């Protein structure tokens, strides 16, 4: 369980004026196995929220606990997947996916066997010996997902993972992500600015306000699982949720 309590984050600005407030007073609890999306306009601090949960960025105020233990830094219990892929370019696909396993002390043969299974899971069998530069964006993100799944985090932190991909690749990867998620139901914190993506994937959508990011609304997505894209697109409940959340995002913010 992830518990975020009264979290704020401000950054020092270069012009030495007042520090820029990126996130204000965020409190959010995410249950084990829950898929939660954080939705908001660009610059609302939603990625910063994810970085703080990951332990990559320190909060200015408030706290994050994971399974009761306060977050003090990055750890293999929380696996990040970034929009920029962030693959190791000097390693092959196999080397990238096996990296975390070897780091955890697994023997090379065992790590590579596990890595091959994960590469198959993300439909990249046959590309084990390719370097990242030889892959398309969608393939790179699949490698990144396999690399993170490899070391067995109980929580996935996904930072606009499909934001840099074209629409077709994007929907393909959304389907694959759901398939993978249905198997072991990891806790997922998913940051996006696409309403459809958030509704399609999530159990719950958290909408943030424009900068500084505050929680504007939380919407439970009660759509049945497993979800199929083709069925959802013609489903009234899905359409209503998308329209409602879009309206919610457009609504002017009341100042606290």
């Amino acid at each position, binding site marked *: 369980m992830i518990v975020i309590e009264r979290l704020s984050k401000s950054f020092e600005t270069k012009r030495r004026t007042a520090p820029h407030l990126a996130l204000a007073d965020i409190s959010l609890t995410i249950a084990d196995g829950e898929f939660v999306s954080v939705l908001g306009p660009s610059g609302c601090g939603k990625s910063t929220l994810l*970085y703080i949960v*990951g*332990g*990559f960025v320190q909060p200015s105020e408030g706290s994050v606990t994971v399974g009761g233990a306060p977050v003090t*830094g*990055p*750890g*293999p219990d*929380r*696996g*990040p997947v*970034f929009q*920029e892929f*962030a*693959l*190791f*370019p*000097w*390693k092959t696909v196999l080397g990238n996916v096996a*990296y*975390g396993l070897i*780091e*955890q002390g697994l023997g090379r043969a065992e790590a590579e066997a596990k890595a091959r299974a994960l590469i198959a899971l993300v439909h990249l069998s046959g*590309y084990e010996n*390719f*370097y*990242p*530069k*030889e*892959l*398309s*964006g*969608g*393939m790179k993100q699949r490698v*990144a997902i396999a*690399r*993170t799944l490899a*070391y067995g*985090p109980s929580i996935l932190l996904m930072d606009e993972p499909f934001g840099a*991909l074209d629409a*077709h*690749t994007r929907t*393909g*990867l959304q389907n694959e992500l759901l398939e993978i998620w249905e198997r072991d139901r990891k806790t997922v914190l998913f940051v996006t600015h696409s309403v459809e993506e958030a509704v399609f994937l999530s159990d719950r959508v958290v909408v943030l306000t424009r900068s500084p990011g505050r929680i504007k609304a939380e919407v439970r997505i009660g759509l049945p699982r497993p979800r199929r894209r083709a069925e959802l697109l013609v489903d009234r409940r899905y359409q209503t949720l998308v329209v409602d959340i879009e309206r919610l995002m457009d609504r002017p913010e009341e100042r606290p």
Partner: protein
Amino acid sequence: MSARLAAYPGVPPLIACAGLLALWELAARVFQIGGLPPAHAALAELPRLLADREALLNILDSVRRMAVGFALALACAVPVGLLMGRSRLVAAFFNPLLMAIYPVPKAALMPIVMLWLGIGDASKTLVIFLGVSLPLVYHAYQGARAVEEKMLWSAAAMGLGATRRLVRIVLPASLPEIFVGIRTGLVLALITMVTSEMIARQSGVGNILFNSLDMALYETVYATILVIGAMGFLLDAAFERLRARLVAWAEPERAIAVGTT
């Protein structure tokens, strides 16, 4: 015509070399300067120079000092550059120092260094070390600074601590840029090597060069210059082969593997 020539990568440089030699031969015959022997005379001197035990020992001395100076520079400069790239504090500490040292011609320090360390190997090696260190530090610094933050975060999530991240992530990620520094460093090492031997003549390629100049053995002078040129060429070619092997992963790829996503 040009397309056919390009099909043989060795041919254009050979033509250029032959042209240069022909021009040299012509100039020597036309101007008849005492200090400029014709190309064929210098070329004829080459086998004698390369068969001479004394000369070979001198060349070997040079190469040894260059290798030691270079290895020391690699061992010191790369870690300093990488640390500078990842820590603003380290960068703030070393930056003014490097800026002050950069414009100083390192060989010009030779007379001072000789006062400390004598005219032997130690002072020449130190001067080569200094000459090579700066481009290495600079490029390692640039490389480390450009390492994608998210890549380091991904490694941190896998459990790599700060030191391991520096060695296992920042170093390989900076390697293409470090190799740019190494290439510049190799040329500088060669230049500093010859200059240091000119100032402190005791042994080495520079020693042969300037002693023969003093004795007006111009054929030997030019043959030695050809040897130095060849050393530079061979070093660079060997280095390029090594670089192509080690950082092929960073070379831009013309085509993406396949059309699938």
